[in-house]
């Protein structure tokens, strides 16, 4: 049986929790043991947030160690840079091409690094997508997470149908159709 370590990073409020829960549910539906580690509380207020999904025959630790992630999904460029070292040598990095200045940059104490995606491409397999633009073109900029998840799903595995059936069960009923469209836009990117 396979084992997979997925890490999802972003900025508090970007909806990383829902993404990790969908991945976890897909893995469970495929018969795996699953553990998901989440961040609640203060960090959710615009801080750097990290969630982990691990699945396999038997999962002990709920977190992924540095250098041990198969897939890293970053919802923001700087967060991709911050956590890229969690990836395995042959790990896959999925980046939502978006920039959110941390307060340290807003107040001028730090500079937002240039060319993050290019830098990361030197060391890792990187696939980026402008989730917000794709989502906007579908008519709802809020479903960018599903776009990014769709792209990541190609590298995580499982069938398209397995993903869609879990999305249907997980997102609010009014948004099923648009989320599925968004997922497919990422998946078929």
């Amino acid at each position, binding site marked *: 049986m396979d084992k997979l370590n997925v890490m999802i990073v972003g900025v508090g409020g970007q909806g990383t929790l829902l993404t990790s829960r969908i991945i976890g549910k897909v893995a469970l539906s495929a018969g795996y043991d699953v553990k998901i580690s989440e961040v609640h509380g203060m960090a959710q207020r615009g801080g750097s947030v990290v969630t982990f999904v691990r699945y396999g025959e038997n999962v002990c*630790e709920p977190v992924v160690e540095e250098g041990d992630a198969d897939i890293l999904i970053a919802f923001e460029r700087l967060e991709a840079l911050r956590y890229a070292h969690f990836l395995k040598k042959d790990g896959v990095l999925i980046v939502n091409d978006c920039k959110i200045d941390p*307060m340290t940059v807003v107040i001028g104490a730090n500079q937002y690094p240039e060319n993050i995606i290019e830098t990361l491409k030197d060391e890792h397999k990187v696939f980026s997508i402008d989730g917000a633009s794709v989502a906007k073109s579908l008519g709802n900029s809020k479903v960018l997470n599903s776009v990014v998840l769709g792209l990541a799903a190609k590298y995580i595995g499982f069938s398209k149908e397995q993903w869609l059936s879990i999305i249907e069960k997980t997102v609010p009923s009014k948004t099923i159709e648009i989320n599925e469209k968004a997922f497919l836009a990422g998946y078929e990117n």
Partner: protein
Amino acid sequence: MAEKIIMLGNEAIARGVYEAGVKVSSAYPGTPSTEISESLAKYEEVYTEWAPNEKVAAEVAFGASFAGVRSLACMKHVGLNVASDPLYTFAYTGVNGGSVIVVADDPGLASSQNEQDTRMIGRSAHVPVLEPADSQEAKDFVKFAYEISEKYDTPVILRTTTKLSHSQGVVELEDRVEVTDKVYERNLRKYVMMPASAIARHLVVEERDNKLQEDGCNFPINKMEIKDNKIGFITSGIPYQYVKEVCPNASVLKLGIVNPLPKKLIEEFISKVETVYVFEELEPVIQEQIESWGYKVKGKELFTKQGEYSANLLRKALFGKDNMEFNKKDAPNRPPILCPGCPHRSVFSVLNKLKIHAAGDIGCYTLGAVAPLGVIDSTLCMGASISSLHGIEKARGKDFIKNWVAVIGDSTFLHTGVNSLINMVYNKSTGTVIILDNRTTGMTGHQQHAATGQTLKGEETYAINLAELCKAVGVPNVVEVNAFDVVELEKIVKQAVGGNVLTVIIAKAPCALLKGQKFPYKCVADSEKCKKCGMCLKIGCPAITKQSDGTVKIDETMCNGCGLCSSYCKFGAIQKVEK
């Protein structure tokens, strides 16, 4: 086959409580414990409430148990300090219906003000402590906790930690088993803790400790895995998972009960293994007791007392290196910040402008301590802002606090702040207290409280009027103001700190993240009019960024249209417009 689903540790605890036939639950929100009550509220069979604080919650649980039903109280670690008064004596009275107190510790300080270890409190209060290691165990251990609570006539603490509470794992669901209410009988020697009864009950408590230490050796929640007889670990909770990850072939004694320790079981394990490591997060609670019995084990000389453990931490301590090679890149920090449209930012912007210091409290508004707002000088515990300000005035006099206020949230004010305010009235303070009334318990994820008009179950109820409450306890000057009206707020704050009477300013505006709110406006910056003065950046709103030419831009998707930035723009370069 039973249904298997993924559950958050906290949801699994709630499920266990439901399955155990519990009828009454009371709690105050606190990360990482909050989701227990929120999940439990969904089960119709269980009465579930938010109490104003943890002391009240624990006493409600006592009352329900005393009346003969199974009961629950839950809280975060520091909440147990507030509840420790009832806890220590509840240990003496024991229970009628089983009673469990779930306490969530926060090693690593994901969202807390200290790293205290609940096992120490369990030990000093003589209350048994159980510690699960995953979601399935969280559910199973809660049910077991009710069994031993009734069998040994004691409240039981179920200790969880952030990593367990906020991790999801696979859980097998079972049905709820209704428990017949116990008969209520008046029993002064057991339930009225005046000295004569308490003297006798203390003996009972000690006997119970001894019995649990013996019987605990046979509890099915402990697990002894003898493999390699050279190296063994005594551990419990989440650290067990790290041991399994790093040393799958080591012998392990995984303790399900961590107070009192099952002494004979531990001695048996030590006799079978050459080198024994005690792997426990935070305090050396297990290690020191084992050493006091005369055994040599390894523990805190290798593993820190601080923070959250990990598999890598164990690996480094044992083998001197990480498993993997990795190259960490420099990236500017991204600390948490107040949200766009947060009313606290508005109040802090005024305090910052007036160069006022604030004694702070527990909530999102602690973020007002850091740049660029930087107005909070102290954060201690729930309710401490008001009493600290009183202490400052009594120490240094009125002149010293003429540029000081206390800031406290609405939920925190009702938790324990009101007691401190009564003290200010009683003992003739003249300070200024600002209640940041955002109509919710914000940081923990928007829970109702006694001034919101809704219960945990979503029923309508009486909403305490904070202004009337302050007036009723005798505050001579109570002023309500819209938190976003910075002109009025500035005037009121100046008057209050300069005046000679105790003043409570209630700055009102709902939390920007409260559900059901509409945001009809957005703010737009005009780069032609922008003079690059940076005034709007001083409020620290994440939606505003400086562009390479020095002018500012407002992110349309992040902006909630509160208009605070436009109030500070002297050049009319920021407009609040309809979306």
